[in-house]
Each structure stands twice: as structure tokens, then as C-alpha cells.
């Protein structure tokens, strides 16, 4: 997926969001660290361009809610969750770059519930690569990308990686 396709996908998903959400003023965007943040900000900007409504964007760090703590080889650096608006009764659009096993989203929802009781939670992902291990599905999908389990899917974004693209790589065979 190249920069153009990414742009079009975001555009398309934004119009879907606007279509399905009657009360846009109640919508808030929460991006999951790290790339979910930038995607969320882009979406917010697009909504502003199309509907002239300001949708706030918050940052969620799910490290403390992971379910695989005792399996991790190395610890993950905990970073700040920065959501300076209340989530109570809001319609939350949760944004992440890749949907895979579904565990990150499960952790994100647990974290959001510890912050308050949202009205609804919708999920937007740029890539859905399949291989779900939990009953989680996205409301808005940029692209479905069938992959084998061993492959690695890497989303690169201009804001931190210098370019927009999606890469699929095979893990290197160790002899």
C-alpha cells in the first residue's frame, strides 16, 4: 500500500464515520500509541475540513493493560496516556494502525473503561491482517490484507517514519 492508497483509504473511512455518526459533536478520537496517534490526528483534521467540527484527539498507552506481561522477553517502556477530556458518555473512535490478534484492542478497551463509561466505542484500523484470537472486529477498515502468521506487517507514517507506506516482510530464516 503506498501513500496515495493510504490517503484515499483515510478519506473514504472519514466519510463513513461522518455518515454513521449522527451526533459528531459527541465524538472523540483516541489513538493507540504510537502510530494510532498520527492516524487519529489525520482523521480529526479531515473531519474538520469536511464538516468544520473540532474532534479532540487523545493518546492511549496500553502497556499496563497488556495480557502478556509475564511472557515478554524485555519490558516495554511505559509512556503516558494523555487524554485530557472526559470519556464519560462519549462516542469514542479508537484508532490503531494494524489489527491482528485483537489483544491490543482488548487492552485498550479495559483502559478506557478505567477512565470512565463511554457511550459507544468504534474501532478504526488502517490494516486488518486477520488471525484474530479474540472476538474483536473493526468498524472501519482501510484495507484487508491477508497474511501468513509469520509475516510482519509494518505501517510507516510520514510524521515519524518519513514516508507513508505499508510493508510486509518475511522473518529472516536463522540457519
Amino acid at each position, binding site marked *: 500500500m503506498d501513500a496515495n492508497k493510504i490517503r484515499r483509504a483515510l478519506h473514504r473511512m472519514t466519510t463513513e464515520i461522518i455518515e454513521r455518526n449522527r451526533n459528531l459533536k459527541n465524538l472523540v478520537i483516541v489513538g493507540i500509541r504510537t502510530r494510532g496517534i498520527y492516524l487519529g490526528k489525520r482523521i480529526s483534521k479531515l473531519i474538520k475540513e469536511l464538516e468544520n467540527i473540532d474532534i479532540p484527539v487523545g493518546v492511549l*498507552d496500553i502497556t*499496563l*493493560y497488556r495480557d502478556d*506481561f*509475564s*511472557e*515478554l*522477553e*524485555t*519490558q*516495554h*517502556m*511505559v*509512556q*503516558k*496516556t*494523555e487524554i485530557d477530556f472526559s470519556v464519560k458518555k462519549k462516542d469514542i473512535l479508537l484508532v490503531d494502525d494494524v489489527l491482528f490478534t485483537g489483544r491490543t484492542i482488548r487492552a485498550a478497551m*479495559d*483502559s478506557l*473503561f*478505567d*477512565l*470512565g463509561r463511554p457511550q459507544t466505542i468504534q474501532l478504526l484500523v488502517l490494516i486488518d491482517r486477520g488471525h484474530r484470537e479474540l472476538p474483536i472486529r473493526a468498524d472501519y477498515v482501510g484495507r484487508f490484507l491477508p497474511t501468513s502468521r509469520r509475516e510482519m506487517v509494518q505501517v510507516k507514517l510520514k510524521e515519524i517514519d518519513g514516508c507513508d507506506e505499508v510493508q510486509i516482510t518475511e522473518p529472516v530464516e536463522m540457519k
Partner: protein
Amino acid sequence: MEFNQKHLLGIQDLDATEIMTVLETAESFLEISIREVKKVPTLRGKTIINLFYEPSTRTRSSFELAAKRLSADIVNFNQQSSSVVKGETLKDTIRNLEAMNPDAIIVRHASSGAPRFIATFCRSHIINAGDGSHEHPTQALLDAFTIKQEKKIFQDLKVVIAGDILHSRVARSNIFCLRKLGAKITLVGPPSLLPLEFKKFGVEIDFNLEKAIEDADVIMMLRIQLERQAKNFFPSLREYTNLYGLDQKKFEKAKKKPIIMHPGPINRGVEISSEIADSVQSVILKQVENGVAVRMAVLYLLLGGKESEASD
């Protein structure tokens, strides 16, 4: 991220990178202490034992809250408890507690070196909550965290630590910590409580508080214990307060309007006047708030993640 320790026995075992990792991690935990649901599931299922041989309300409850906010189970064992009164040795007490499989034991003990002694035969992660006159690492970490909040940078920061330096584990841990981070430290106190040998720790020494605080960015006052007067370390509390107590009059001499810190509990009117303790420069209550976040960070860094070989 760098934190490859099995125990937290003292600041001396940490390098600057590891200290900064604790401080950065603590920032994330500060947020949890403010929001409505002050809990995360991170250490769910872990068992922690608080083993305090010396009385303490604030440090013990700070650790307790830290553990509970991380969803760990924590049990308190204090020195009034029956088995200590019955004369059980420290080693036997630990062996008995170890049989209950705690993931971590937080120890405060009057003997310097006791946590290190425990770590030689106990499988759990050992956290030093204060050993004799030796170290109080989490206090130094939360002090550093508080300084970072207010002053942002440690390099060349001028810190004055005043009081009974000789017997203070808080002083030692802070000296080690702040020096590793690049700060410049001046110690102040009466000569009987501040041997000149302390210069070998890479600090300045001054017996005059007013002079020392002139260019200070941070003033850390230490509690003076009444027992020291009985042993002639100084002739009377009155004389001590006149010379080494921080009050408004002395504070005027501090040109940079430094922040004022104290590990608590404070002796109002002795080492610190009420005015100063309650002044806008005082961050004493912030220290307490930060204490929980820093201790959460320490517990997370020691216990979160796989029990790897990096430990021992």
C-alpha cells in the same frame, strides 16, 4: 529502556540511565493516581510483603498504595508482630515468609546491610525501604523526581542537604543519586554530625547554613532526632535550631528562591519553621504524592515482565 536489576538495594547499584528510566516511568504512573479509577491490572496476581522492622506510616502506606494501584496483593508485617517479640532471627522470619512465595519483599530494618544480607538467601525481589544509616533508595528517587518536575535539569544544579548527615540514609541515597545525575551538592550541619571525610563523596561541606543556601536551587532539610542531643552531638535543640534550622530570616539569604524539600515527618520549629514548611516554595507534599508514583514505577520495573536471566 534500561533496567536490569533483580533487587533495589541501593542507589549505588544503579547507573544514571537506570535512574532516569525510573523517573520517566514514574511520570506515567502519576496520571493514574489522579484519575477516577486509580488502578491498573499490571501486577495482578503478584504477591508483595511489606516487612517493616522500624515504625513508619508514610513509607509503608506509600508502598502499600503503590502495590494496590498496580493490582498486586500486599501484606503488612510490622515489628510489633508476635514472632519478632518471640525472638525469631531475621533469617528465620524471611525463610518463613518465603515459604508463602512472595514475588517481592519490601524491607525496612535498623541494621545497615540487612536487605543485602536477605538477598543472599531469598529468592524474591528485595526492595530496600531503608536500612540503618545506609540507604533509602526510593526516597532518593522520589526526591529526584520532584526536583525534575520543578527544575527540569540536574546538570550543575546546586543542592543543599542540611541536618544530621552522619546518621541519615536519606542523605546518602540522595548524594549518590544526585551526583550520578550531575548535580552539585553542599552538605550542611554541625561538625559532630558532618565529618570532613564526607568530602570524599564528591560534595562540598559547610557549617554555615545561611552561607550555603545563598546560591542554592534546592534545599533539602533532614529531620533531627532528639536522641542525638542526649549523646552530645550538639548541646541543645535550641542551639541547633538557631544555627541549622531553616526559617524565614535565613531563607531570605537564598537569592534564587530555591524549592524546599523534606523527607518527613517534619519537626515544626526545629529543623524547619512552620512558615517555611507551608510556604509556596515548599514541595514537601508533592514529595509524598510523587512517592506513590515512583514506588509504582519501581515495582513495575522489578516485577513486570518475564523473570529473565538478566536478574541475578
